[in-house]
């Protein structure tokens, strides 16, 4: 049975903060297919198109028939633990600092035998479920969980090392004025977050969510204007060293493409909040968060951007807003690369149209604040890098993955009536 995780003691400033170390990052190009699946929390293996043989480790040719037509497919994740070991010493610093560390050999029902990390509650010859997760190097690793849920199983140290679980963590949500903020704060609180900071811009201006937020335990509303470098730096100076997860939900949204507007003033506002806001936050909070990724139970762990799914491909009715989100998405990829050496994870949560005033002219389905909060917390608990909230976002992403040029045409048809 897993020992429940205790809240961490207050940080002793005289004790050295443990330097971040990482598990091995190098992978073949074929193996990156597993990491791409882990970024979305899927367990996928290569299947041979010709003979159907399931492959592992990832290959360039089928070990059954030499076909080079191997396709990543979601795969039955059940198996049996054949052998196990507890590692007490390793040549790799990351593991050396975390021993004892359990690994095992699992016979998958789907065919291959895999070497994987072992949840503490797995027993020899017992049934297990394999999950595919990103480790702190940002690469996929397989982890066996007991097939029956066990008490406090999410607190297993090896599992927690692969995820961004909010439990016992201190979290900054950047924009109190976003209609989704109270639901996100509530969901994080329910998931065990120890402290929730919420940024509020223009504090003199009334905010409809403020009362609900202030009434919540563990919530602290602080001044933050992501369009003001000084304001961002000031808050980072105050709480940057105790921000374990940062959730950037600041958004400036107006309808319209290029020709629907007569000048660039809204577009500038969109870029100030949606793009430069992210950059300001990253420049102020990023370095200190990246230095604290090995800092015990509440080490810094994740950076979350809430973006429109039209960051992937423009929605002309909101063409300029889409462009600012595309810019933010591109910046998030750079940030992900820059954080990689520290193990700090960047998760992008892509939304379809949300249930609020700015999307009023669009038909349903729309995304509720509760759905955003749920997707966000689950994404953190599963250590994802990419997650999609709502039917529209999932639909757009499926089409994007299938063929981005077709998607662009589908969303930009002028209609025969014109």
């Amino acid at each position, binding site marked *: 049975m897993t020992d429940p995780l205790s809240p961490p003691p207050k940080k002793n400033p005289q004790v050295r903060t443990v330097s971040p170390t990482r*598990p091995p990052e190098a992978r073949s190009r074929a193996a990156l297919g597993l990491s791409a699946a882990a970024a979305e929390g899927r367990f996928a293996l290569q299947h041979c198109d010709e003979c159907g043989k399931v492959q592992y480790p*990832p290959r360039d040719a089928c070990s059954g028939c030499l076909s080079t037509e191997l396709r990543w497919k979601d795969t039955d994740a059940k198996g049996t633990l054949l052998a*196990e070991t*507890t*590692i007490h010493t390793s040549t790799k610093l990351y593991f050396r600092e975390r021993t004892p560390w359990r690994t095992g*050999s699992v016979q998958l029902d789907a065919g291959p035998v895999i*070497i994987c990390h072992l949840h503490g509650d797995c027993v020899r010859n017992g049934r297990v479920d394999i999950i595919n997760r990103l480790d702190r190097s940002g*690469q996929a*690793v397989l982890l066996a969980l007991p097939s029956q849920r066990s008490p406090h199983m999410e607190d297993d140290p090896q599992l927690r090392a692969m995820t961004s679980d909010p439990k016992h963590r201190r979290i900054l949500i950047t924009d109190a004025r976003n209609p989704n903020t109270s639901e996100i704060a509530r969901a994080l609180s329910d998931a065990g977050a120890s402290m929730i900071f919420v940024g509020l811009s223009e504090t003199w201006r009334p905010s409809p969510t403020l009362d609900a937020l202030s009434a919540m335990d563990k919530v602290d509303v602080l001044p933050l204007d992501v369009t003001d470098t000084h304001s961002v730096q000031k808050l980072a100076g105050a709480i940057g060293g105790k921000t374990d997860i940062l959730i950037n939900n600041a958004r400036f949204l107006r309808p319209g493409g290029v020709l629907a507007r007569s000048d660039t003033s809204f577009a500038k506002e969109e870029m100030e909040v949606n793009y430069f806001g992210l950059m300001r936050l990253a420049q102020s909070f990023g370095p200190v968060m990246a230095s604290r990724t090995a800092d015990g139970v509440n080490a810094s762990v994740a950076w979350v951007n809430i973006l429109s799914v039209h960051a992937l491909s423009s929605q002309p009715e909101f063409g300029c807003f889409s462009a600012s989100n595309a810019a933010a998405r591109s910046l998030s990829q750079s940030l992900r690369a820059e954080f990689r050496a520290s193990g700090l994870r960047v998760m992008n949560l892509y939304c379809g149209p949300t249930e609020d005033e700015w999307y009023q002219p669009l038909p349903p389905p729309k995304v509720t604040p509760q759905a955003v909060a749920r997707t966000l917390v689950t994404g953190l608990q599963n250590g994802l890098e990419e997650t999609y909230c709502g039917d529209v976002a999932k639909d757009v992403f499926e089409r994007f993955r299938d063929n981005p040029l077709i998607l662009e045409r589908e969303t930009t048809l002028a209609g025969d009536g014109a």
Partner: protein
Amino acid sequence: MRQSYDGVVLCAPFTTAYQRYSIETAHWWIARALKGSLDLAGLRPSEIDGFTVSSFTLFPDTAVGLTQHLGLSPRWLDHIPMGGASGVVALRRATRAVQSGDADIVACVAGDTNHIDSFRLMLSSFSRFASDASYPYGYGGPNANFALLTDRYMQEFGATREDFGKICVAQRQNALSNPGAVMKKPLTLEQYLAAKPISDPIALFDCVMPCAGSEAFLVMSEEEAAKRALPYARISGAIERHNAHAEDPIQLRGGWSVDIDELWDMAGCAPVDMDLVQTYDDYPVISAMQIEDLGFCPKGEAPSFLRDKDMTIKGDFPHNTSGGQLSAGQAGAAGGFIGLVEAIRQVTGQAGPTQVAGASSALVSGFGMINYDRGVCSAAAVITGGAR
């Protein structure tokens, strides 16, 4: 039946004394062993026309770069990257080269250096499957792979830590007679059982000590050896197999079990005729497996078979007489030669302090390359003493 290895012999076995760490390079260690072997045979470098090399730390060079580096001009050249199977594989290839006339005298050499941290760096790029699918799992080497294998072997066959300890303790006893061994202190079963855990059920004395070292021998026709009055060993039979039993979920048998009948048929003798056995011993479980797969006892019975045996030099089942890798040290690819070079010394009566009295037949077995979850290469040879 395959063509025999008759008419070709092994001579001039040379071992460069191992060192825990070395500031020298693989090139240096290989040169030392090559020179040592040639000196034993009274040959100049220009007199060999065939050359095989096995090494992990020679990068960016291969056998090719070494020809120019060492001033050799062979007409037959091979690079054998098969780790623990390299010795027997080199023997097989070189013998066929001499039989066919492609070369007259082949020098087979293996050597590696060991710098501070070079072992860790080597592990991180050992194979594509290892970097994709085993190194990220805490491994830092084959310790955990062999722990899984040992765990399963113990479950399946009821082997105990004491059974593996017996192998390690006997080898340490043998190493004490080998001045070139890295390990110089006696080891008791109590110390073995109480050792620091490494990766359960494997503890400190189940693991080899990475070190620097090199090994070499020469392959030539029997007439050539006789003309030069060199002691030599004949090859009665040899086998090699790669990626056998790929569908076994965990490696509880090696490729030897595929080819064992052919080995003994070719050799015209049986396991009981062997005066000594040199197994590849990076972990004791794999020695136990070789003893089974090579026909000394049925599968799973090595522990009980060995319980009644004395595996020391003076015992009734001399095994890894120079101390093996477990006690002499694992000098990289030279670990694939240690048993073979020692066996040539043994059956030609040149083993000195580790000599098994009256030894004339030996089984040598090799095992190599934990590519992902198991050793892929296996090989074995039976050699017998020729002229002394």
